[in-house]
């Protein structure tokens, strides 16, 4: 577990370094994710130099445990938001209507486009 956690942090750190050094508008953790994906794709070729935990399922267990509790990680920021609700007070009702309708529209349009193109490209699943 510790090696897996360390590996996630190393990928994030490298991602942050690349993001800052290159000035790309992509967040460091997203680059870290790309790096982790590259590492996984190459892991069979890297067998002699890579820690055993990348290959024996430990990395999967640690990551899936974190992702299963992804909701928890938004709680501290959410609590901060509750304290700032006065910011939306002036236009509260209008903003709530805009957020609800826009979110519903975005969900429906995205899902419909996805399904439509999937059907066009002969993918029925």
């Amino acid at each position, binding site marked *: 577990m510790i090696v897996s956690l360390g590996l996630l942090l190393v990928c*994030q750190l490298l991602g942050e370094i690349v993001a800052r050094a290159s000035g790309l508008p992509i967040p460091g953790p997203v680059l870290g994710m790309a*790096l982790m994906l590259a590492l996984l794709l190459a892991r069979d070729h890297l067998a002699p130099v890579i820690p055993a935990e990348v290959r024996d399922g430990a990395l999967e267990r640690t990551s899936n445990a974190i992702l299963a509790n992804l*909701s928890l990680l938004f709680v501290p*920021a959410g609590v901060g938001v509750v304290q700032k609700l006065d910011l939306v007070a002036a236009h509260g009702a209008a*903003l709530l209507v805009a957020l609800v309708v826009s*979110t519903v529209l975005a969900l429906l349009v995205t*899902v419909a486009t996805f399904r439509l*193109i*999937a059907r066009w490209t002969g993918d029925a699943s």
Partner: protein
Amino acid sequence: MTEPFAVWVYLSRTPLLWLTVTICAYVVADRFSARVGRHPVANPVLHAVWMIGLILAVTGTPYRVYFEGAQFVHFMLGPATVALAIPLYAHRRTVARAILPMTGALLIGAVTALVSAVAIARALGVPHDVLVALAPKSVTAGVAMAVSERFGGDPTLTAVLVMTTGVIGAIVVTPLMRLTGVADMRARGFSAGLSAHGIGTARAFQVDLLAGTFAGIGMGLNAMLTPILAPVLLPLLLG
């Protein structure tokens, strides 16, 4: 024997108390969510947040003090983002086959999320600077705040609108997909991540691992596209 007040003075100054409160509130909210079969209204983020907010209000604790404890949980958002690579790798063939549907859904979905929010709020009389803060509401908080700030919006207001969008998306996505009869977990997850970023993604992982994988992709792609779309669309919408 120490007075209770002295114990409180100690506790209120250590990160231990608020870290523990954060995790316990989440466990209560998550257990309840599991008990009611992951009903969308029993969203664990929503219910953990108001419980903690209430405790902070009753004890008169400032957010800054709370965050000293809660920051350890907040910090894990970075490693969790990296961890999205693991389900992505596991489903890489399914993901590769869906590249065209994802590209089209990304373009049309990201434009819809931004344009509809700004257009509706504008029609309801919301002022210009608030519209700017609202525009990136479907994107993950860090990126949304940067977009908002660049065009003169208040990043804190954006954070509030982003979190609210996440909770709304996480609550409505499942009923909406049932109502419209969409069973394709790839499309459902992708739209949840695109429209409601990490909180939508967390919801997708509750429902289905494949949905969660596609939600992570939707969230990541929209975080890349919206900063490019905003400078093109905002002048058109606000002009």
